[in-house]
């Protein structure tokens, strides 16, 4: 009847490290409260699910799936998100930290600016809560890069998909600082993308990208 219990992964930097682009207050609430709540609710749902499995209660198991997907998605997305951000002044926040990834980005979108423009347009087109991701999709020996959006906390976990970096477009990710100025948030968060992490995920496997989750059990 035992279920794994997840814990909040520590941020790889201080709460104020992303200022002035993302305020300390936002980071504290976002990590300490929002992310923690997804974990708390995920653990509760997994515990109930383990009991339902134990008692062969199939209807309860199916009934729990939406809560598990939402809260596990919230945990997965935020865990990946913290790692794919870095202080603006750091070497990680420069695209030079991702030579191979940038090479492929340029091959697809033309140049970094065109890629950014496409990403920004996609992010601003999200209706309601959701995320924008750069995703590596592997099909057999082929691999391609694509920009995708996911609604609410749907995670990027499809077959062959490796999330390279994600941007949280929930209002709680920016509202205290940017209010309804969503475009300014997108412009500024772009300055704190951790391109080193992005490069590692691009070159690595799916399991590598998700290893942060194993560490939070």
């Amino acid at each position, binding site marked *: 009847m035992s279920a794994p219990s997840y814990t909040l992964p520590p941020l790889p930097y201080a709460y104020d490290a992303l200022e002035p682009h993302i305020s300390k207050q936002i980071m504290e*609430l976002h990590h300490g*409260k*929002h992310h923690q*709540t997804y974990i708390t609710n995920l653990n509760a749902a997994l515990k109930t699910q383990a009991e339902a499995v134990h008692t062969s209660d199939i209807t309860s198991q199916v009934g729990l799936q*939406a809560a598990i997907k*939402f809260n596990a998605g919230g945990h997965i997305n935020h865990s990946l998100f913290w790692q794919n951000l870095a202080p603006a002044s750091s070497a990680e926040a420069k695209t030079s930290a991702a030579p191979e990834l940038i090479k492929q980005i340029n091959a697809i979108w033309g140049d970094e600016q065109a890629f950014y423009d496409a990403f920004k347009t996609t992010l601003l087109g999200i*209706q*309601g*809560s*959701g995320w924008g991701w750069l995703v590596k999709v592997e099909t057999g020996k082929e691999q391609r890069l694509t920009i995708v959006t996911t*609604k*609410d*906390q749907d995670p990027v976990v499809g077959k062959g998909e490796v999330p390279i970096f994600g941007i949280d477009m*929930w*209002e*709680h990710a920016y*509202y*205290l600082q940017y*209010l*309804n100025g969503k475009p300014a948030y997108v412009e500024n968060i772009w300055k704190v993308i951790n391109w080193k992490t992005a490069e590692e995920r691009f070159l690595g496997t799916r399991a590598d990208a998700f290893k942060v989750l194993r560490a939070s059990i």
Partner: protein
Amino acid sequence: MNSTLLRTTAVRSALRAAAPSSAARAGIAGTTFVRGKATLPDLAYDYGALEPAISGKIMELHHKNHHNTYVTSFNNFSEQIAEAKQKNDIAAQIALQPLINFHGGGHINHTLFWENLAPTSQGGGEPPTGALAGAINDSYGSLDAFKEKFNAALAGIQGSGWAWLVQDTQTGKVGIKTYANQDPVVGQFRPILGVDAWEHAYYLQYQNRKAEYFKAIWDVINWKAAEKRLK
């Protein structure tokens, strides 16, 4: 739909030329119908009038910025869809549908929301009477039991959305329904009372403590306005 939702272009331009500040108050007197344009409706109370339940700053941003963006975007995409119709461009018309739904829904939802809120000095929070009180008691036993179920529905929204007390146009019964993003209450159900569960509706004041917002908003619910929507 509500008369504050649509006004004519002709009236709008006349008013814009005369006195822009009074534009939102006049309106329905237009006779020559050119093409309906949505406009931001005035609030029936001051931005700060719903405090402490909802802060004046939230109300101002929510009305002047968020709602207004839905209005201008809806008008913009309505124009585009009209052009696509003229050109018989079916693909473009279909591509524009989600944008019409989202921005038109945002306009409808917020317009209804402002109306079903009121400062306590104007009856906000006073319990429903008459047919609506009866319908709620029939379905939920008591107003408190209803509020509890409504707040549970609000808390259960995954992402952005709204919770509504709706009336089923087939059975006449009332019930609680949640809608994603800006999906409006249309079709089989009639909106009676809505609560905005988007983070922008409460975040500046309540941050992640949304349960406190859901609890406080009952102090400024305009049940009289809700009653008028029941048929």
